[in-house]
Structure formats: structure tokens, C-alpha cells
């Protein structure tokens, strides 16, 4: 193996996740996000889970969340209407940490 730049999805693919399919732990109100000019989430989420689609609307998938909480503290206009840790046993499981 040689060291190369890796995309966030490639890096997340190395991690162990137990995704809670029933209950998302982060919920957005995309109408609020659409109005938000700064959108810091696009930059600060280490997993780059926040992206924009062609229409300029926020796309978000909580499945690869590292549960750091950065999006929550940076969310300016409260487009993140719900942020909690996933239910017990769900979410990221670091094997090294």
C-alpha cells in the first residue's frame, strides 16, 4: 500500500457503522437550509456528509456520521432541527479510537 489522498467516503468505508435505519439521529429542515447563506456544514463536517445538489439544496446522509457534533455547534440558522446521539449500540463503533 502507498499513502494517497483519500476521499471522505473511502475513509468512512474503513470504519464500522451500525446504522439505525429506523431513527435518524440528525434531522434537517431543508427549507431553512436552502435559505441559509453561509452553510458552514459543507466545510466543517469531517465526514463531508453535507453536500449540495444541482438545485442548490442540501443533501445529507446521517449514515456515515462520526458523532463529533461539529455541524450542531456550527449550524447558524437552525436548519438542523434535531441532533442527538444515535440510540444505544447504533452509529459509529471505533475499533481503534
Amino acid at each position, binding site marked *: 500500500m502507498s*499513502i494517497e489522498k483519500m476521499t471522505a467516503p473511502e475513509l468512512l468505508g474503513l470504519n464500522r457503522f451500525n446504522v439505525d435505519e429506523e431513527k435518524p439521529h440528525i434531522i434537517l429542515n431543508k427549507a431553512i437550509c436552502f435559505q441559509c447563506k453561509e452553510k*458552514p456544514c459543507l466545510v466543517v463536517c469531517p465526514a463531508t456528509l453535507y453536500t449540495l445538489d444541482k438545485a442548490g439544496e442540501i443533501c445529507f446522509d446521517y449514515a456515515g456520521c462520526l458523532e463529533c457534533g461539529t455541524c450542531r455547534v456550527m449550524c447558524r440558522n437552525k436548519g438542523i432541527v434535531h441532533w442527538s446521539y444515535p440510540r444505544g449500540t447504533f452509529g*459509529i463503533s471505533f475499533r481503534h479510537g
Partner: protein
Amino acid sequence: MSEAEKFDAIIIGAGPAGASCAYTLAKAGKEVLLIERADAPGSKNMTGGRLYTYALEMVDRGLSAEAALERKVTHEQIMLLSGDRAISIDYHEPSFNATGRAPQSYTVLRAGFDQWFAGKAEEMGAMVVCGVKVDDLIEKDGRITGVIAGEDQMLADVVIAADGVNSFIAQKAGLIKDISAHSVGVGVKEVIELPSKVIEERFHLREDEGCALMILGCTERIHGGGFLYTNRESVSLGMVVNPEEAAKHGKSVHAILQDLKMHPAVLPLIEGGETIEYGAHLVCEEGYRGIPQKLYGEGLLVIGEAAGFVINTGYSIRGIDLAVLSGLAAAKAITDETDPAKLGAAYMKELNHIKLLPSMQSVDGYKDLLDIPRLYADYPNLAADIFGQLYTVNGQVPLSMKKIIESLIRKNGLSIWQLFKDGLRGAKSI
């Protein structure tokens, strides 16, 4: 709803703070419940990182010798990066690993360490329950009397919030306000697997010995820095940046770390390795001044990173040792103070007695030093320029050192006056 059980103490979060508290309380014969939302202790947690062993030794003598730790840190390094250039400082202190006493610090990976520590608490008699997330606190007549997890209620004389930097529990109790973006850094890290022999050769280490490297000038002028810790068979390479400045800058936090990985001074250290995990975590950056006004309420104590116990001096970062100490302080207060109304005050007294708060207060000024924006690019650039001139031999008549430095200060958009002011500010801060 299940029948409520009653414990002497319920601890929320099986990190180092929670485990230290549970271990000490169980050892003193208390009925303790340690609740963890992950399926195993440690699997939600990550660190740079390192652990200073004195804290474990305070919990129990000899504890650090059996702990699940990585390498004994004997090399302390600082690297300044500027473009593709680098200045490195390596301080080697063999006595940090002298025979007959605990090494000063170890590198650590949290999945293994936290599981070990919670296991020790369990051996002492604490009940450890994993895979359970505490949703809320039970309050009765202004006093916290237990916790709610799903449909279960559990009661206790005292509840201890050890649920980390995003402490929702302390917020629910109204003890602390939500953390603000300017008071935290976002840390990201790759664990890169390498054979132990390769690590020892590259970092000039003896077997079991390790290195802790802090990197300045790798964050696109954003307040923050990189780090590299050598584990037994991997290195932890990462960085911490201020999320507000990162958002203004516009380059993704993930991309900044990928650039650091490929830096000509960093790449040879990890070349041939394989990334096996990617993690992220918020870090309290405010130090002593960021500690919440009140770390206790009726029936509730706040410990570890939930209480903001982190020290960052730039050259070393401490969090796990302070977490362990705070767990110990809470346990001592609970054991020694029989009057529930005086428990909070007893905890604060223990935090002082155990030297946690005085240590944080003593280095509080570093925050002012680290707030100098020029530290993160201008000064590393200036230092690299000066070294570049010193080591350039091309047959031209060399300029005097004074002239070189004056011209390089100007080239970097700085002034002697600015340098003088920052120097004074730095000297005052520390």
C-alpha cells in the same frame, strides 16, 4: 416500566472520567452503575493522543503498568511547516522511560484503553451496562434522583455526567449552556497501520518507546495544528482546527488533513502504511476560562470533558489525565461527604486538592498566546525563510544576519514592532 433500582451512584459515560469514578467508588464499597451508549466502552471515543500516567497512578498505584496503552513517549517533537519546507525539533528524554517507575506518558488508542479501564471498574464491583443511551434525568423537588433510558428508570443518590464534550446531560440539568463554536476545535484523525519495526526505525525509537509530534503551519492559517503519535503498530495522524475559521476559509476539514498527509516532511513517516480508521471529535479549547460556572447541582456532578477539563499549551495537550483526576475527585467527594447538600462543594474542594483546577488556572494564559493569529502561518513561514537563508550557499556574498532577518520580516508582511508586541504578549501569557 421496569421496577426502579436504586444505586449509590449512576455514572453516564464509560470514558476515562466515568471509569475512574466508577473504579474508585466501587473500591470504596459503593453500589455503582456505569452506563455507556456504545456497544463496548471506548468505541464512541477517540483521542490524539496520549495519556500522562501520573493520573492512573493516583487512582491506584501500579495501574498504569497493566493498562492497555501503546508506547512510552520518550521523544517530544515540534514541526513547523511552511509550504513544502519543514523545521523539526526533537527533544529526547530517556528518563521518561526509566526502569523502576511508571513512564511519564504513553500514546493511547481509546477503544482498547477505555474497555480495559471500564473492565477494571467492573472487577472492583461496579455494574457496567453498555448499549444503553441515557435520554433524560429524573428530577424530584429540584434534585436529580436518577436517569431515564428508553422505558427504564434507574435511581441513585447521585448522578455523574461523564458524557463528553457535547454533554447533553449537564445541559438538560441546566448546569451548562450549549458549547459555542469559538470555544471548540474540531479534531480529525487517521489511524495508519505500520509494522512496529518500521515505526521504530523511522522515529529512532527503542522497542516500546514512542514519539509525540505537534505540527504548526499545516492548517491554512486557521487556528489549530497537526499531531502525530506513534502507537505500537500504527501512527495516529491528525489535526485540530477552529471550525469557525475553517468555515470562513472554505476548504473542507477533511481536505486539509489529506494535504497534511501528503506533505513532504510527513509522507516519509507514514509511507507504506495503510489507513485503517478515520475519526473525528470536538475538543474544548478555552482551558480554565472555559470551565462552566457550576459543575454540580443537587444530586448531579459533572466530570471529564463534559466539564471542559482540557489543557492545551501548544506543545502538549492534556485531557485524559484530567478526566481521570476529575473522576477520582468526584468519587472521593461522594465517599467522604455524607451531607448531600455539601457534595458539590466537596467535589470542588477535591478538584483543587487533586491539583486539577490549580493546574488549569496556572496555564490559562497560554490561551492568549495561542490566540495570536500569526502563529499559524506567518511565524512558521518567517522561521522557514530564515533557515532557508542560513543554509543557502551559492557563491554570492552573504548578507549580514540582521539584514536577512529585517528583509524577511518585511517579506512576510510583518514588522519588528508586530514581532515585539507578540513577543511581549507571549511572555505575559505564559
